[in-house]
């Protein structure tokens, strides 16, 4: 069974999470594409809180004894996915940053080289 107290706790926690996520999206600090899993996490918990039957069904389906554990497990799995998404993001960002640095470095050298050639040319004309 899920107690009313647990229902209220999960509901409030999900509400708080959704509040911060939506505020982040609206203010532009959080891109929607990165917020989807967060929204999903908040919504799932919201559903568990409002319809405990859903949590009970899931509990039986997964062969777990306590409904609260089913709620935890679901949240943890989504949280892991979120972390994986972050790791992938940070890896690609690092690669992109490195590419930029390499391009910049080569361009900088080319500009330096061109400047020297221009200087030489203008000196010759004088």
């Amino acid at each position, binding site marked *: 069974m899920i107690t009313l107290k647990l229902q209220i706790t999960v509901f409030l926690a999900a509400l708080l999470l959704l509040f911060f996520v939506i505020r982040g999206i609206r203010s532009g600090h959080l891109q929607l594409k990165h917020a989807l899993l967060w929204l999903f996490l908040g919504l799932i918990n919201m559903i568990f809180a409002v319809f405990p039957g859903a949590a009970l069904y899931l509990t039986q389906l997964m062969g777990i004894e306590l409904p609260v554990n089913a709620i935890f497990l679901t949240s943890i799995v989504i949280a892991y996915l979120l972390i994986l998404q972050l790791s992938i993001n940070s890896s*690609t960002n690092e*690669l*992109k940053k*490195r*590419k930029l*640095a*390499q391009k*910049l*470095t*080569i361009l*900088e*050298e080319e500009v330096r080289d061109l400047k020297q050639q221009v200087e030489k040319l203008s000196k010759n004309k004088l």
Partner: protein
Amino acid sequence: MRVLILIPCHNESASIGLLLDEIKDLHQNLDVLVINDGSTDDSLEVIRKRAYVKVLNLPYNTGIGATVQTGFQWAFKNDYDAVIRLDGDGQHPPADIPAHLQALEQDQADMIIGSRFLKTHNIGYQSTLPRRLGIYYLRHLLKLLTGQRIFDPTSGFVSCNRKVIRWFAEYYPYDYPEPEAIQRVKQCGGRIIEIPTTMRKRLAGKSKISTADSFYYFIKVSLALIMFHGRKCSTRDI
């Protein structure tokens, strides 16, 4: 044949000047490129004092792989036929550059590795025992995965023709890249040979690889070689 000497440099102010002078004293009229990888000492000033040296100056410390790759990208863009890469710490004797040049000119292989462990030539600085064990292990792992025995798979004294310059400009492995770079050349169908070299102790400064790093090195390189086994000659970087 237009040949570029490529030297990655991160905080090597104590040795890089000497190394550059040694290369100049070869009188081979070689173009020299140093890629300064965000040095915090006065390496950059030491290099810039020598007018015959081209300098690429990375905006932050990107690591050895990205540094070397920047050099290959520059070499490719500037139509060099071959690159000879040396470490900035002076371990690789410029006196051996002519041997690399000769191998390149005779097209003996696409990639030539300066090796300190060739059977006929086990002299000079052989590194510390734990590292030699690591190298022994890598030698066999690479043999298993690529079918070719490379006696010195961690050597940074490597020269390449234009084909390999292109492969490396497109993709070059990032940290501790040498064994993976060998794997890549094999995956692209390149020919590799080793020629003997007599490595010296670094001229100055300390090695950048600590004991903890060695452990990470061991795991990282093994995993990378196994994970990327059978991969095609990819040109995709990101």
